[in-house]
C-alpha cells in the first residue's frame, strides 16, 4: 500500500532498465543491468574505461542499433514506461524524446540557428515563428543566448570548444526531450568551459532528466543526484551520489573510489 501511494505521489522513473544483457556479436558487454533513472534528477554513470558506461547510455536511445550485430539479448529498456524495443516504437520519436550530447562537440557545419533548429526541422516543423521561439528558448537554456544572439547566422564551427559543446546541448534540448544523455561531455574541454557546462547541467536538471557518463569522479559528486558504478559490464552499485561516495556498500566501489584501480 505505502509503495503504491509513493509511486502515485512521485512521477514514475523516466528510464527503467530491467535485467538487461547486451552483446556485441558473441561477446557480452553488459550483464543483467537494473537501473532506474528518476524524474528531473541527474544520474551519473562512472567506472573504469571499457566497463560499458557508454554502451549502457547508448542503449537508452538505441544508438547501438547502428552497430551491426549489437543487440539486447535479455531484459528490457523502458522509457516513460514503454519498452523501446517494441515493434510499434518509432525510432525517430524515441530519439526525439531522448536527446544526446557526445564526448566531442559535433555541431553541423551550418549556422548556429540552423544547428539548433535542425531537430525541429527534421520532425517536420516549418513554422518560422515557432522555430525562432524554440531556438531562443534552447539557447537561453544552454546559457548561450546572450553570447550569440547577434550572430545566429554565423557558422557554428567558428565557435570555441566550450561554446560548441553548449550549442550541442541547445540542439539536443530544442526538441524538448524527456531525457538528456551526455557521454563525457566535458572530457575534451578546458576547466573553465567544464565549469560552465556543469553549472548548465544543474540548471537543466530543473527541467530535464539527465544521464551523464563521466570519467571524473569529482564531477559526478558535484552534479549528480544518483550514481551508478559499473565494472566489467556489471552494475556494481547504484545509489544516491552522497551515499555512494561517502559510504559505499560494495568493496569494489570503495576500491575504485580510493583509486586502487582505474
Amino acid at each position, binding site marked *: 500500500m505505502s509503495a503504491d501511494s509513493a509511486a502515485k505521489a512521485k512521477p514514475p522513473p523516466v528510464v527503467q532498465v530491467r535485467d538487461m544483457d547486451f552483446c556485441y556479436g558473441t561477446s557480452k558487454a553488459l550483464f543483467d543491468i537494473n537501473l532506474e533513472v528518476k524524474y528531473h534528477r541527474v544520474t551519473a554513470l562512472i567506472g573504469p574505461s571499457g566497463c560499458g558506461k557508454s554502451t549502457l547510455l547508448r542503449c537508452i536511445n538505441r544508438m547501438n542499433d547502428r552497430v551491426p550485430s549489437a543487440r539486447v539479448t535479455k531484459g528490457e529498456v523502458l522509457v516513460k514506461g514503454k519498452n523501446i524495443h517494441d515493434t510499434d516504437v518509432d525510432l525517430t520519436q524515441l530519439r526525439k524524446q531522448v536527446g544526446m550530447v557526445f564526448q566531442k562537440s559535433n*555541431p553541423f*557545419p551550418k549556422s548556429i540557428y540552423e544547428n539548433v533548429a535542425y531537430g525541429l526541422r*527534421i520532425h517536420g516543423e516549418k513554422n518560422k515563428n515557432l522555430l525562432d521561439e524554440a531556438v531562443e528558448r534552447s539557447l537561453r537554456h544552454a546559457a548561450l543566448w546572450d553570447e550569440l544572439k547577434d550572430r545566429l547566422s554565423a557558422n557554428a564551427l567558428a565557435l570555441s570548444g566550450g561554446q560548441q559543446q553548449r550549442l550541442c546541448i541547445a540542439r539536443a534540448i530544442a526538441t524538448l526531450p524527456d531525457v538528456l544523455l551526455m557521454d563525457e561531455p566535458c572530457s575534451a574541454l578546458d576547466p573553465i568551459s567544464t565549469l560552465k557546462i556543469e553549472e548548465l547541467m544543474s540548471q537543466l536538471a530543473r527541467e530535464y532528466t539527465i544521464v551523464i557518463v563521466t570519467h571524473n569522479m569529482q564531477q559526478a559528486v558535484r552534479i549528480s543526484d544518483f550514481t551508478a558504478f559499473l565494472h566489467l559490464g556489471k552494475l556494481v552499485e547504484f545509489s544516491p551520489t552522497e551515499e555512494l561516495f561517502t559510504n559505499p556498500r560494495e568493496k569494489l566501489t570503495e576500491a575504485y573510489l580510493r583509486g586502487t584501480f582505474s
Partner: protein
Amino acid sequence: MDRPTTPSRPPLRSVLLRSRKHTVLGVDPQHLIRWFFGGNASIAVIVLVLIMIFLLREGIDFLPTYRHELQTYRRAGLEFCDIIDQPLQQNQTLSSSLRQAISASLETLSKSARDRRDAAFLLKRQIEDKTTRTSESLSQALEKTPPLPPAELAKLRSEVQKAAAAASASLTYPDLFSAAEREQLQREFAALTPEVTDLPPLLQTLAADFTAKDREARTKFASLVQAQEEFEAATEPLQAVVDELKQHAQETKENAVEFEVLETNRLRLLEAAAKEKDPDEKASLIKEASASFTEAVNLAERIQAITSRATELREQVEKYAQVIEKAAAVLPTDAGTGVARTMVNDVREGIPVHAQAMRKAAAQLDSWRWDKPVSIFTVIGAFFFGTSWITNSSWQDFFGFVPLLSGSLVIAFIAILIATPVSVVAAIYTNQFASEREKELIKPVIEFIQAIPSVVLGFIGISLVGNLIKDVSEWSWLQWVPGFPIQERLNMFNAGCLLAFMAVPTMFSLSEDALNNVPRAYIDASDALGATKLQTVFRVIVPAGISGILSAILLGLGRVIGETMVVLLVAGNRIAIPDFSAGPGAIFQPAHTLTGIIAQELGEVSRGSSHWQALFMVGIVLFAISLLVNWCARAVARRFEPHKA
C-alpha cells in the same frame, strides 16, 4: 649522432644513414639521399614547366605571323573586297529560302497530280523490271539480221505478253487511283511490249495533268517566282565587279607572298655567303642569291586599281539594294501553306536588313585605308573573337578561335549536365545506402569505365549512339523536343553523351571520397536527434561534402574539355559556330573542338607555318583552361571546406 657504446661494429644501416665520417664525392650521403627523393618529387613540376615553355615557344610567334598575314590581306586589297563580299553571301541564304518557299507553295496545288503521275510511273517501272528477261530477248531477236522467222517472233511476243499480263495482275495499285483507273492501268500495262515506244494513254494523261497543274500553280504564284528570280539576278552586276576586284587583289597577294619567299631565301643565301670562307663556294652562293632577286611588288600602285573602283562599287551596291527592296515589296503575303508563308515573311523582313547591311558596308569603303597598320590588339581580337577558322583557303586563311571554343564548351556543358546527376546520385547511393555486396559490384564497375580506350568509345558513338539518337529523334511522339528530328548522326549531343560516360568514373570516385570524408560525428549527431537516413543524407552528409562534390564536378569538367579522341570521332567536325538561334535544338548540330582541331590538323601542316603556330596557340589556350579549371576545383574544395573543430 649517438655512437653505440658497445665495442662491436654498428649495423650497416646506421653506417649508411648516420655515419658522418664517410662522404661520397665530398658530399654527405644523407644529402644525396635527400636530393634524390626531392628530385623525384620535383620531376612533375619540372616537366610541367618544360611543357609550358615548349608550348609558348612554338605558339607565341603566332601573333606576329598572323599580324603579318593580316597586313598582307589588307595591303593587297583582299579586305576591301571582303567588305562587300561578306554581306553579299546573305543573298544566297535568302534566295534559297525563297526557293524552298516556292516549291512548298507549288506543292500545295500540284501535289496530288504529281503523286498520281509518280505512282503510275513507278508501277510501270515495276512491270518493266518483272518482264526484263522476256522483253530483252524479244528486242534482241528484233534487231537480228537477217530477221528471224515470223513464227519465232510471234512466239516471243506472246511470251512477253504473258509475262506483262502476269506482272500487271500481280501489282498492288495504290488508293490514288479510282477502280476504273486501276483497271485501265492493268490493261495498259499488260499490253506493254518493247516494240511500242509510246507511253500508255493513261500515263500520258497523268503526266499532262501534272504539267497543267504545275503551270497553273506557277501562274498563281507568278509574282513569287518572279520576285525570286529578280532577287537572285540582282547580285549579278555587283558580283561581277567584286569578282574582278577579287581576282586583282589575289594576284597582288600571290605576287607579294612569292616575293617574300624569294627575298627571305636570297637574304639567307647572302648571309651564308658572308660566313663562307671558300671563295668558290662564296661566289656560287652570291650568284644563286642574285638569281633569286625579284622586284618587290608595288602595292601602292596595284591597290590603285582597286580603290579607284570604290565609287563604282558603291553605286552598284546602291542599285542592288534598290532592286532587292523592290523585289521585297512585291513579295506576296499569301504564299500557299503555313511553312511557305513564314518563310516568305522571314525573307520579306530579311531583305531590308540585308540591304541596310550592304549600304553600311558600302559606306565603310571610304574610310578603308590600304596602308593602315594592323595593330597587335586587332590580331589578338581576330584570334580570340574571330568567328571563322578557315585554313588552306585559296583566298585568305583566318584563325578565329570562337567556333572551336563554342564547340568545346557546349559539348563539355552537355557532358557535365548529364554526368553530374548520374555520378553524384550514384556516389550517394553507393556511399550511404548500398549494402557491402552492392558496393563491391558498383565501385569496380564504374571505375572500370576509365579503362575503356576512348577510341573504342568513339567507335561506339559512331556506330551505335549516333544511330540510336537519330532513330529516337524520328519517333513521332517525341517531336516536341527541340531539334527533333535531327539531321546529323554525329553531333555535339552525341559527343556530350559519350564524354559524360567518360567523366562519370572521375566524378563518381571523387564524390564518393568526399562523402566518405564527412566526419562520423555529424552523422551521430543527426541520428541522435531522430533523423531518418534520408534526412541525414540530404541535410547533413551531402551539404557537408558539397565542397568535395563541386570539386569533383570541376575536375570532371577538366577531363571533358581535354578529351580528344571521342570528340574528334563523334562531334561531327564542322568548323562553324553552332546556330544558337535554333534554341536548345542547337545541341544536335555538329561542331569542332579545341582538342579535335589540334589532333586533326597538326599532323598535316608544315612546321613553323602560321597554321602550325595557330594550332599551338590553341594548345596554349587549352592548357590555360585546364589549369584554370583545376585551380578552381582546388579553390572550391578549400573555400567550402568546413573548419575542422
